[in-house]
């Protein structure tokens, strides 16, 4: 390593290479985390249930989402993105997933929460299949890291159904 510039370049290159290695090991350390999240969603009210002018069914509902997702956070977690999706089956599609609500949890302190809200996004069907439909509400989460691999998983809550007639 001959001159000043030579040594500076060598130092910076080696330092950045080692930093990349440290980030890789940090991401790998996330695999040692075994999360144990829990969640509960109650549908408080079906606000209205109508057939839209275009011919599609639409529902508006109010739900109470409570969850404890603190075990998902590690030292390498930047934020956790969660969303609630309604899943059901129709004659045309074996699986329909409609996202109703989502949020970003920026820190572990905010991961144990409850929220009383109407659906943020419209629950619209492809057709008129929603009358009396049984559906699942699934809480998905994406654990977004500071560096490395993102983990995604979900909890499926079953047993919800829509009214038989439009209101």
């Amino acid at each position, binding site marked *: 390593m001959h001159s*000043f510039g030579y*040594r*500076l370049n060598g130092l910076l290159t080696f330092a950045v290479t080692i930093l990349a290695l*440290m980030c890789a090991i*940090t991401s790998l350390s996330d695999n040692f985390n075994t999360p144990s999240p829990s969640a509960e969603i109650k549908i408080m009210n079906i606000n209205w249930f109508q057939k839209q002018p275009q011919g599609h069914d639409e529902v508006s509902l109010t739900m109470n989402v409570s969850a404890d997702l603190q075990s998902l956070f590690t030292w390498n977690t930047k934020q956790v993105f969660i969303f609630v999706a309604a899943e059901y089956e129709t004659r045309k599609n074996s699986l329909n997933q409609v996202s109703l609500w989502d949020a970003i949890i920026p820190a572990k302190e905010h991961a144990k929460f409850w929220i009383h809200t109407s659906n943020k996004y419209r629950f619209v069907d492809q057709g008129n299949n929603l009358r009396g439909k049984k559906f699942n509400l699934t809480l998905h989460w994406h654990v977004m890291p*500071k560096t490395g691999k993102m983990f995604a998983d979900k909890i499926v809550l079953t047993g919800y159904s829509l009214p038989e007639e439009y209101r």
Partner: protein
Amino acid sequence: MSYFTQNSLLSFLGYPVSLQTFLPLSAPSLHFTMDWQGQKLAEQIMQIMLLVFAVTAFVAGYVLGSFQMMVLVYAGGVTLTGLITIPNWPFFNRHPLNWLDPSEAEKHPKPQVTVSSKKKGFKRTIEPAHRLDPSLPTANLVTLA
């Protein structure tokens, strides 16, 4: 400060001291380069320090549960390593090569190319005549047989 004490102080600090050169009593300057031993030492120090700081930073971050702590410790380590290994500190110049003074070199003839003819070919030898100290490593003699 007398010239004698200045010289002894400088040789203590690792500056190459000779009668011909009048050295300023200052921090490392670009006038001084590292010698070969010093370069090797600088590279070794750099690699070891960076690895040690990387491990320390990771352990600190993991134990404290703080990614920011890991990055800060590592950044501090990189800066410290840079301060130690990049400038031409005097302790990197403890084995300087004693090149011959130009006036002395003129007293010795230039390298001879001796051509001795043989039956099967000719042999050329080049002798280095510009080194005063035979204990220092010399370049290999190039012989074409």
